[in-house]
Structure formats: structure tokens, C-alpha cells
């Protein structure tokens, strides 16, 4: 399958390059740790039930660390006009989109996988439940789907990194809200069936936006 081969080639390229320097990963990791520390100090003094703020803190951290990743990932393509190299290849532009999106997904999930046990320890909660993990995956898919498209635009402007959160956050609000609600529900021990509408919303978002973004990606990269 040519399409899959190329998508995987792009992911492989990003992973190998990152494994060499580990720049991105380490900066995301440090950033996320800092956020936990800052949050735990900010809230510790005022809130008794840590479980109330934990979902919010978790997802805000993921969102900001994710933005960091998106910026860096597209920046490496734009520096030295390497995006041209991808655009010259005999493949549809959407292949590039899926390749980059999958790469972004892998990196962000990796950081999240690392952060969840740390969060669990710091907040003294069990965040490693299967339902929660599923939510993290679904939420990150939506985030990466929209984020890949928007970071491709943002990185092409004068404002670069500053612009991405401005463009991204209003649009991924449904993802954040759903994810926080489900996380909170899981920590509260609510029934899985109660979470169903939120889950449907998440999945719906993922499907709709993966589609919309992959269809419009062409127009963003082609002049």
C-alpha cells in the first residue's frame, strides 16, 4: 500500500530525527513537569479535594505541551524549506497531512504516557484506568488533527509560535470539555454509561475534524 508506506515513512523520519537529539521530548517533558509543580502550588493552598482540579490541570498541561510539540514539528519542515521536499514527492498532499498528524500524535501520546504516572503520584489519584486512557487517546487525536493543520498555517506567518494557541484553543474547546468531563467522571467513579454522550462527542469531533482538516490541508501548502 503506497499511501500507508509513505505515511509511515514520514512518521519514521520524525521519530528517528527526534530520537537523535531528544530536544523536543525533553523540552516537552520539562515543561509539563513545571506545569504540574506550578499548579500543585497554586491550588494546594485553596482546594481540599484535589480530584476536583486534577482533570482541568491534566488537560491544560497536555494542551500546552501539545502546542509546544506542534510548533516544533512543523518548524523543522519550514526551516530550510524542507516542506518542499515533501511537496515534490509523488503523493497527494493529504498523505503529508496524515504523516505529520500521526507523527504529532505519537509524540504527544508519548509525553502523556510519561506524565500520567507522574500526575497520579503527585495528585495521589489513579489516572491509569482504561477508560481514562481511552479518553486521552481520543482527545489527543482530535487535538493533533486540528493542530497539524493550524500549525502548518501558523508556522508560515510572522508570529509563528504565538499564533498557534490563539488559532487552536477556541476550536478544540469541545475536545477539552469532553475530556475533562470524562476524566472527572472517571475519578468520581461514575458509571461508564453516563459518560457516553461525551464520548460520542469526542469521537464525532475526531472524525469530523480529521476529515475537514485533511481536505483543506492541500490549500494551505499549495500556493
Amino acid at each position, binding site marked *: 500500500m503506497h499511501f500507508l508506506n509513505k505515511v509511515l515513512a514520514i512518521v519514521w523520519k520524525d521519530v528517528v530525527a527526534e530520537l537523535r537529539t531528544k530536544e523536543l521530548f525533553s523540552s516537552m517533558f520539562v515543561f509539563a513537569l513545571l506545569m504540574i509543580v506550578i499548579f500543585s502550588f497554586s491550588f494546594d493552598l485553596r482546594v481540599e479535594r484535589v480530584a476536583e482540579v486534577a482533570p482541568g490541570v491534566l488537560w491544560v498541561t497536555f494542551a500546552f505541551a501539545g502546542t509546544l510539540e506542534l510548533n516544533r514539528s512543523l518548524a523543522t519542515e519550514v526551516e530550510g524549506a524542507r516542506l518542499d521536499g515533501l511537496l515534490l514527492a509523488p503523493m497527494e498532499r493529504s498523505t503529508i497531512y496524515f504523516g505529520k498528524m500521526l507523527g504529532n500524535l505519537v509524540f504527544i501520546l508519548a509525553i502523556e504516557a510519561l506524565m500520567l504516572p507522574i500526575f497520579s503520584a503527585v495528585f495521589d489519584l489513579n489516572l491509569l484506568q482504561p477508560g481514562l486512557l481511552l479518553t486521552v487517546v481520543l482527545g489527543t487525536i482530535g487535538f493533533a488533527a486540528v493542530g497539524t*493543520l493550524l500549525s502548518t498555517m501558523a508556522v508560515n506567518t510572522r*508570529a509563528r509560535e504565538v499564533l498557534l494557541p*490563539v488559532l487552536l484553543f477556541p476550536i478544540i474547546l469541545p475536545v477539552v470539555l469532553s475530556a475533562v468531563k470524562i476524566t472527572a467522571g472517571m475519578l468520581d467513579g461514575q458509571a461508564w454509561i453516563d459518560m457516553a454522550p*461525551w464520548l460520542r*462527542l469526542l469521537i464525532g469531533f475526531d472524525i469530523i475534524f480529521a476529515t475537514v482538516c485533511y481536505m483543506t490541508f492541500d*490549500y494551505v501548502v499549495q500556493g
Partner: protein
Amino acid sequence: MKAGSRWVDLLSGLSVAMIIAALYLVFLYAPREATMGDVQRIFYFHVSSAWVGFFAFFVTLLAGIGYLRTGERRWDVLGFSSAEIGVTFTAMAVMSGSMWAKPTWNSWWPWRQEPRLVLVTILLLIYLAYFMLRTFVEEAEQRARFAAVYGIVAFASVPLTFMSIRWWQRLHPVVFDRQGAGLTRPMLLTFLFCLLSFTVLYTTLLLHRTRLANLADEVNELAQRLHSGWGGRT
């Protein structure tokens, strides 16, 4: 051009007339609301402004699709002109919503009780993001493309955002649920007339704004030609 501007003049006159009529209806004709008193009258303008805000962005969405399909400048002009007017009305909606909220719920920002206010604010943020994007892209063609794509993606998020905000509050019907519930006949009439007059106003402003943008384009083109010494034909 002559015939076109005749229409614009007509519409301008109509807008003025309708807004004046709307003011009359809102302040003099519509009855005083039982529970909230005169403050409730803001509601007519608030909802009409919000309506224009959303409608204008929908037009931006359509303009974006038009631009991507044809690459013609006039679609981009329509897109950002509509967005400019839309952002103004949305800002008005947020402010009027806040003014209405304070006496109603004793809070300037009752985001728990009124999810629609949150939604309108998100819309405002999206508009601002749209303009920030336009500001930071240097090249005109790329700017039009990016703005078109963003308009499409952003508008697609609005329904889902609305759903998620609504469910977040685990909402029960609020006082003004759907137009018609809890509204007497004169109020309904006033309300609908307000909506209509704001829509006419929006259309008028849009025509003026697009005309202005097209004229500016012409001037720029002429200046370019003068500067590069080409003159005459391109």
C-alpha cells in the same frame, strides 16, 4: 456602478428607517416584562446582535469555500468584510449580554447559568483569531487562502462547541429557551422586527464595506503600476 450604488443608497435609507422603527418598538411599543422590568429590553438587541455575529461568520465560511474553489479576490473581500462587521456585532452581543446578565443573575459573567453567552464569547475569540491570522500573513494570496481555511474549520467547530458548553452545565431550560416561549405577541413582533432590521443593517454595511475594499484594491493596483513604471496595460 451607477445602478449598483442606487441599491446601496436605497438599502442604507431602509436600514436607517428600520433601526429607528426598531428603537420605537423596543422602547415604546413592547410591554414591560413582568419579572425583569425594563432591563429586559436589552434582550432584543442582544439576541439580534448575536444572530448577526453568527450569520456573518457563516457568510465568511461560504466566502472561504468560494475563494478556495475559484481563487478570485472578490470572495476574499466578502470574507473579511463580513468578518469585520460580524466581529463588531459579536462584541456588541457580548457586552449587551453582560449588561443583561448583571440584573438577571447578579453577575457580570454568569457562565454557569447562560451557556449561550459563553458561546458568543468563543465566537468573538474565533473572530479575533481570524484577524490575527490575516494580520500576520504577509502575502496577499496566502492570506486569503489561510483565512478561507480557518473560516471553514472554525465555523465547523461552532455547533460542537455549543453542544459541549450546553451539556457542561447539565442544563435545564432557562428563561428564554426558544423564541416564543414566555414571550407575548407584541414582544414576539418586536423581537422579529429587530432581527430583521439588524439583518438589513448587516447587509447594508456589508455592501458598503465590500465596495470600499474593492476601491482600495483598485487604488493599490494603480499605485503599483505607477511605481513600477509599467503604466497602461498589464
